[in-house]
């Protein structure tokens, strides 16, 4: 008796929600076109990696020794040296953003080198610390290589003492390519966007337009309303997910080292969490403007800022780290990056999966309650 009417009503409601979604093109713009744009942007447009940074070279000491010392910069794939005559000129260029750093070899370089106390000055633009920090490492590296080479040839102070050299290996992302971590992170961003932002208006809109009153006085059950509202956006989310995975693999050559099936399952789970989050917000605010603001504030911003997607959680103060653990996206970011780049770490998948499942059950109950058929 109970099963068949439930399904029939659910299907009727899903049909209704799907039609409404499809009739307003702006839904599809945000649901499908924006994710596509983001994928391309993240894949091609954005990169944290420093390449071809212009660096002003001021060789006040133009001796062969001095030129040799900074020769590594010329060979570096990260920097493009620009020879500048005077320090004043170089400073002007740094100020106007024409170069990102100045490498200055002082007049007494060769003399002091003889004394084993040679100095090279590096001036960075602190406006962009990311760039500055990277350049510092590259310049150090470039000069270090030269010194190393010279020591290998022998005849320099300190030879024969024995030194430590680093053999560096970056796991999961050998090339250190930021696209590799941005693109999996994008899955999180898009799932949150489609889930929370688009659905945040669904219940609020019905309240604002007064469509719920008549709907309530029918045999319809609150759970059916919740499930029906989720369904069409779940499909949109899955299409986005497929786009992300295909783009990651085909366009950006990001490896998928874990099980594809597990990636899909985890994403589905997170998608449900964020859909329910959006619906819940919609149900409690009953106002589209407030709902969309709140959705941005409690789901989208934390997913961007606190999930470890862009900013490493290891760097943040303890309080922020504790808050970040409350954000569902944090648990998904951990899983999805590992699944893409490292492999299927079952312990992590199960732990984070359980947390997300917990969230979805709690949110389902809460959303259900916001739709209990009452006007007061």
């Amino acid at each position: 008796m109970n099963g068949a009417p439930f399904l029939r009503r659910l299907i009727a409601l899903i049909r209704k929600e799907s039609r409404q979604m499809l009739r307003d093109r702006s839904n599809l713009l945000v649901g499908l076109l924006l994710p596509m744009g983001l994928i391309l942007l993240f894949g091609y447009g954005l990169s944290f990696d420093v390449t071809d940074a212009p660096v002003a070279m001021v060789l006040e000491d133009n001796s062969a020794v001095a030129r040799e010392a900074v020769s590594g910069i010329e060979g570096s794939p990260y920097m493009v040296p620009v020879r500048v005559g005077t320090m004043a000129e170089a400073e002007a260029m740094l100020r106007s953003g024409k170069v990102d750093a100045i490498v200055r070899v002082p007049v007494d370089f060769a003399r002091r080198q003889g004394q084993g106390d040679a100095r090279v000055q590096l001036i960075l633009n602190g406006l962009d610390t990311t760039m500055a920090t990277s350049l510092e490492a590259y310049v150090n590296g470039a000069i270090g290589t030269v010194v190393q080479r010279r020591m290998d040839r022998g005849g320099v102070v300190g030879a024969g003492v024995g030194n430590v050299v680093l053999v560096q290996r970056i796991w999961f992302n050998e090339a250190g390519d930021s696209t590799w971590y941005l693109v999996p992170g994008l899955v999180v961003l898009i799932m949150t966007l489609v889930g929370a932002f688009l659905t945040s208006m669904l219940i609020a809109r019905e309240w604002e337009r007064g469509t719920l009153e008549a709907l309530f006085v029918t045999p319809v059950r609150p759970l059916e309303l919740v499930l029906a509202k989720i369904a069409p956006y779940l499909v949109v989310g899955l299409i986005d997910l497929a786009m992300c995975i295909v783009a990651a693999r085909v366009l950006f050559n990001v490896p998928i080292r874990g099980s594809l099936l597990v990636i899909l399952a985890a994403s589905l789970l997170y998608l449900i969490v964020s859909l329910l989050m959006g619906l819940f917000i919609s149900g409690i605010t009953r106002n589209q403007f407030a709902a969309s603001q709140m959705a941005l504030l409690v789901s989208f911003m934390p997913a961007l800022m606190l999930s470890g997607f862009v900013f490493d959680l290891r760097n943040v103060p303890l309080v922020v780290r504790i808050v970040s653990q409350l954000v569902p996206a944090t648990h998904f970011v951990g899983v999805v990056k590992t699944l893409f780049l490292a492999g299927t770490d079952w312990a992590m998948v199960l732990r984070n999966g359980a947390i997300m499942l917990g969230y979805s059950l709690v949110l389902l109950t809460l959303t259900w309650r916001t739709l209990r058929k009452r006007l007061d």
Partner: protein
Amino acid sequence: MIDAPPSVVIEGLRKTFSGPDGKPFDAVAGISLSIRPGTLTAFVGPDGAGKTTLMRMMAGLLRPDGGKLSVLGIDLLVDPQSVQNRISYMPQRFGLYEDLSVQENLDLYADLHGVPPAVRAERFSRLLAMTDLASFTQRPAGKLSGGMKQKLGLACTLVRVPDLLLLDEPSVGVDPLSRRDLWRIIEQLIEAEGLSVIASTAYMDEAQRCDQVFVLNRGALLAEGTPAALTARADGLTYVVTPDADVPARDLQARLIDAPGLVVDAVPSGGQVRFIRQPACDDARLKELLHGCDAQPREAELEDAFMLLLHEHEGPAREASVPPPLAAGRADGPIPGDDGAPVILVRDLVRRFGDFTAVANTSFDVRRGEIFGLLGPNGAGKTTTFRMLCGLLPASSGELRVAGVNLRTARAAARARIGYVAQKFSLYSNLTVRENLDFFGGAYGLRGKRRQDRVREIIRQFDLDPSAPSGNLPLGYKQRLAMAAGLLHEPEILFLDEPTSGIDPLARRAFWRTITALSQAGVTIVVTTHFMEEAEYCDRVAIQDAGRLLALGTPREVRARSGTAAGHMNEAFIAIVEQARAAEGHARVAA
């Protein structure tokens, strides 16, 4: 039948809300009643009577704060879902999904109610035929006219035969034709399917059709009984008076209604004035008030009884809230600034939307100081005409002069000379009365001291509370505020779009009293309305349908033109529109 258990039993039912001022008030204050099954029952009462709250409680949407409530023998406090499975409910504002088509809306509700496909085809075709929506099944609900939406809402609630049908003011904002159709559908269903119906309404002619009527006011039940039994309460108090030949009926009506000690209520009708005298009124003083005109007794109607009950219950408190007539009313003499030229001139006005002609070749004039009524069914083109007159919509062709300014070339200049009161309350509801008036004063170019003076003056005239948030005002006061905003800049012409839609009879009387005073002060009034009896207040009316102008003239001329025997304006209107539609049909058949 007599032995069947009641469909609704209410005992000491109470519902309390917190008011706009933060204080709690009883929307429903201890009502007890029971309703027999298989009957058509009406709840009547002014705004704030508690009709909607009662309906919502019966539908299980609001939880009572006290008392007992059972519907179809089921206690609503225990099991609202079982009740909701068996009843159908049409809220005041039926929330159609405007982006879904007519058919899709119907399908949704049929699916939710579990109407089997076999039954469905027959049921749909019947509902669509009854509602005249058969040719619009693919149209999005949002693109239907107000009357069609309401009919579709009714169709959606009637996709299956419920054990009880609840209708909350089904005919608000619906024109007389659609209103008649709506009730025909309901009556057909009662006859064919033995439906039990409970409807709330502000129209007495609708209550008249019911088996049982409950009169509510301020959450209390004032009276109950059959329409005949209720009407009997007004027996012997109802009269009709014919004014002197050169006096408009509305002037006499205004004089009568301004004497609440003697007269309970007065309305113009068919060139005469129908009124109810106070039971304890002094005959000599009444005669004096009538200026010697002869008052004939007439048969009491349900509306008379209703007005009487309300006045008894409200006492003098309500009287005080009627706005005082505007200052400096013009009693006699020429209208200020009248040079005889029409203040609105419309020649061959046409408006097309794509290949649809909303207004076809319409011509009319409005003279200075006239009250001009624009009547027509929903979707007749009257809103389009109205919007063109106000400069909200450019005309496709034709000539349009308002206050001597050509609207096609100097819209902004014309707008400074007109006032506009929109159909729905359309001031800023989160601003206070004063803030709204300050803004509109500023927008109309009033500055500094002059604006302060005008705002103060208009607040006084309309008896408004300057610091009240306008969104929380009762409907009648919202109406006043909207008028006040439209009159701040002392316009020559005031446009009112269905100003009385959804407003109870008491507030309507007060509203028209203000209008007649304005007209006496020389303001030209253009008004649209669905209440045909209100056309009686107009000097001239125009009836539009399907974009064409069907009739133009004084109410008396229009009634004569309809060919119906004197009667109400309502019947005249329906007759004119139907004759025109029939002629159109013939022409199409002939072609």
